[in-house]
């Protein structure tokens, strides 16, 4: 069959992995933000208790 058939299959595989990859990146970013937020809140509470 024509090369178009192969190209579209490639687009399909690419799209599938791109969607998963974008989600993984968004998860990693959210994880980093939450870790920092948790540290900040804990620090804030610790300094509040000292005062």
């Amino acid at each position, binding site marked *: 069959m024509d090369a178009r058939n192969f190209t579209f299959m490639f687009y399909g595989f690419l799209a599938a992995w791109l969607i998963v990859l974008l989600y993984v990146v968004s*998860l990693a970013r959210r994880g980093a933000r939450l870790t920092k937020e948790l540290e900040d809140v804990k620090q804030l509470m610790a300094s509040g208790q000292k005062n």
Partner: protein
Amino acid sequence: MREKLVMLLAGLAAILLAYNLHHMFLVLPNEVSQDFIFRIIFFHVPAGIVGMIGFFVALIFSVWYLAGGDLRYDSVAASIVEVSVVFSIVNLVTGSIWARVIWGIWWTWDYRLTSQLVCVLIFVGYVMMRRAIDEPTQRARLSAALTIFGCFDSVVVWKSIEWFRNNHPGPVLSIRTGGGNMDPDYERTLWLNFLALLIIGAALALVRSRQESMEREIDSLRRAAHV
């Protein structure tokens, strides 16, 4: 412990995917009528099944939440729904690309396609709604209600190819037809890829549920600070 399990699952999925990709491209022959493009089935169908299973697992956790009021069940349900939405989007996008080659169009308002789109929209709404509501109990109750509603649509998605005959092909997997509609070698690769995607989905849901517990911890610390 959770991090180690995620790493283990990721490693397992990578090995399985490498084996599957090798089999898909170097071992299996081209399909007679569709040629190369038929290989898209190895992601299109497994992604759809993983998404659907995820919605039903989330339903179980949502019902547990409604029965006991434990917010941890709500968090687990929310994590699974989010990951399932990603896989359902993969299912829709790969299906659309496949349709462009086989049907000559990107989209048609076929019962299967439309019900799957509605399902994705319901659960995208679920994710957006959770971000809009701050009160945890109200958020959990509404989320559970939406999960139940979304799962009704999932049943329609599953059965639509038996109930109605449109552009989308009817059932081909032997668990639904009893066999004979698909080459056994193709079907074995499809199920192995389903397993790989299921493992990836489980790993992502574990990561996401860890984040949900962190959010709960931040929330409770903030509440304690304000008391």
